């Protein structure tokens, strides 16, 4: 996987940059773009691609190591963890977070749960159908 | 020490090349004026003599007996005003450049001063390289003037028929014109005149640096320092003229040289200190 094909990361300036990078990795892992055991780019390549400075890239990798998202043996390049449990927890963590954010923003509208579920099924269904046939569909 | 020397030579080369257009221009101007002027003056005098001979029917030899020929000094005498202007031009331009060689680095679109002040070499090399450049210009013009006088003698031999020629040695030719002030024929004279010139250059350098460090206050200080040195030198020189002074002329000369040395040392030391920590972009 060339560094250039690495998906763009839209960054905001309020959250710590290194945490945004870690999240981005989690999304790539969750969506399967990064497979277990796959080599991750070097600190320098990541910095160039993400347009962040090498220290931040370094900090992101350190954070990911602490969260055991990546493993480094000796001084060979780090690799995505192949520990299934960690991988699974990443997916649920991301989904949980997304849903949490959704719930908080919707709670203010005080809508009953069933209506919400119905609406999600409908949007999610249409979103999926739309995504299927034409790859370049408008982003949601 | 060696790297500093190499850096100094490279900086000096840079400074010399930055002025080479003007220097060559000056040389051309001076040559044109003095050689062109001489050939013109010679041609007019020769035509006068020819018409005089035709009217009187004498031969050239008889004319020479009567008028003892046409000396180069006589011809140069007619050129004195113009030569003076040419030399004054050189002096004024080089004197002005003694300040411009500093200010051009500060002003203009590019601030070369930033780069020069950040060189990993003692900053005093800037002072010495610019000084070396100015001295190179002065001595090139000095040498060029000698070449011109030689050229004038050659021209004289070419244009003047040998019957009218009056032989003079090269040094005698220089000694007999006002040029001798700038092209001294005596060592003591050379050391004093060019010693004074060097001190003036050093004082101008340090005044420029004082201005670059303390702006107007610095400029005034520099001018005051230079004026004081100058007044002291003139006072000593005049003292030697006044036969009644308490000090003997040779003692006043020693003081004169002393003041030159002290002023030079002060200017160099002050320049070194200012460059080290006081000058500002």
């Amino acid at each position, binding site marked *: 996987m060339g560094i250039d094909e690495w998906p763009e990361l839209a*960054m*905001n*300036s*309020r*959250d*710590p*940059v*290194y*945490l945004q990078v870690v999240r981005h990795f989690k999304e790539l892992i969750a969506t399967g773009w990064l497979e277990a055991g796959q080599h991750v780019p070097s600190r*320098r390549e990541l*910095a*160039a691609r*993400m*347009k*962040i*400075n*090498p*220290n*931040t890239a370094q*900090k992101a990798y350190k954070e990911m190591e602490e969260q055991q998202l990546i493993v480094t043996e000796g001084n060979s390049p780090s690799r995505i963890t192949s520990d299934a449990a960690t991988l699974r927890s990443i997916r649920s963590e991301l989904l949980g977070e997304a849903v949490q954010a959704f719930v908080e923003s919707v709670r203010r509208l005080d809508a009953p749960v069933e209506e919400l579920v119905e609406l999600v099924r409908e949007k999610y269904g249409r979103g999926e159908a739309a995504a299927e046939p034409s790859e370049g569909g408008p982003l949601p | 020490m060696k*790297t500093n020397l190499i*850096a100094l030579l*490279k900086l000096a080369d*840079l400074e010399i090349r*930055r002025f080479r257009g003007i220097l060559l221009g000056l040389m051309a101007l001076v040559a044109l004026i003095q050689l062109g002027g001489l050939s013109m003056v010679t041609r007019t005098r020769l035509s006068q003599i020819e018409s005089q001979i035709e009217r009187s029917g004498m031969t050239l030899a008889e004319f020479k007996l009567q008028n003892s020929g046409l000396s180069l000094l006589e011809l140069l005498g007619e050129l004195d005003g113009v030569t003076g202007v040419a030399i004054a031009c050189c002096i004024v331009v080089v004197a002005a450049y003694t300040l411009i060689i500093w200010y051009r680095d500060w002003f*203009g*679109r*590019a*601030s*070369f001063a*930033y*780069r020069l*002040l*950040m*060189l*990993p*070499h*003692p*900053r005093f090399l800037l002072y010495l390289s610019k000084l070396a450049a100015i001295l190179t210009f002065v001595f090139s013009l000095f040498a060029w003037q000698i070449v011109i006088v030689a050229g004038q003698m050659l021209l004289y031999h070419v244009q003047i028929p040998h019957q009218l020629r009056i032989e003079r040695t090269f040094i005698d030719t220089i000694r007999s014109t006002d040029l001798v002030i700038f092209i001294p024929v005596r060592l003591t004279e050379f050391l004093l005149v060019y010693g004074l010139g060097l001190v003036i250059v050093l004082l101008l350098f340090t005044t420029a640096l004082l201005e670059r*460090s303390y702006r107007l206050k610095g400029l005034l200080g520099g001018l005051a320092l230079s004026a004081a040195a100058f007044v002291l030198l003139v006072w000593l020189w005049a003292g030697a003229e006044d036969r009644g002074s308490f000090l003997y002329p040779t003692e006043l000369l020693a003081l004169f040289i002393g003041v030159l040395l002290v002023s030079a040392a002060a200017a160099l030391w002050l320049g070194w200190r200012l460059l080290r*920590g*006081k*000058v*500002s*972009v």
Partner: protein
Amino acid sequence: MIEVSDIRKKYRRKQVLGGVSFQAQKGQITSLIGLNGAGKSTVLKAIMGLTPIDGGSIRIGGQAISPAAYNTIAFIPDRLTMPGSMRLRDGLQFMADFYPRWNPARAEDLMSFFRLERGEKIGRLSKGTAMKFNLVLGMAQDVDYVLMDEPFSGIDLFSRELIAEVFTSQLVEDRGVLITTHEIGDIEHLIDHAVLLDQGRVVRDFDCEQMREEHGKSVIDVMREVYRG
């Protein structure tokens, strides 16, 4: 690290620096932020010994500024530093002649990275190209610290992006970078440490990621508090 302690400077009876203190760590990108006239450039020039200070002290890697120190610190000012009559190649030759720590190979990389024409006259460069060449002169020295004065001001968007890329490259890695700017916009997420100046005084001095983590504020938010509040 670069240690600036309590430096003061008066310029024509105006207190340009009223006791500025901060540190720029080696290996970090520190940004000196302040509105126009806050004294940013003066701080950089003071650190480089290009302008004397009335009080306080400056240490670079524990040493005071000296000619030898110029082997360890490079300064990229906001203007040309080479005579206009020179061509780019003469400028590079000048650096090679006088800077033992000059890295010709890296200079070549940067020249092609910025697509600069060696034969061009320095005096006729546009502002953007001139800044790029300045960056070449600064970055191609193997030094521990690099100081940059408003590298982005008045420069077209594309040059700006090109210049920003330099900050993400190994050119910056484990070097101390101190960069001044008054519009943080495009390099907000590039800098590790921010020092905010106002009327010659340090009003804020914080680690950007820490500020985001603990207060959820971006550098611009802090600037808004300081300069608009």
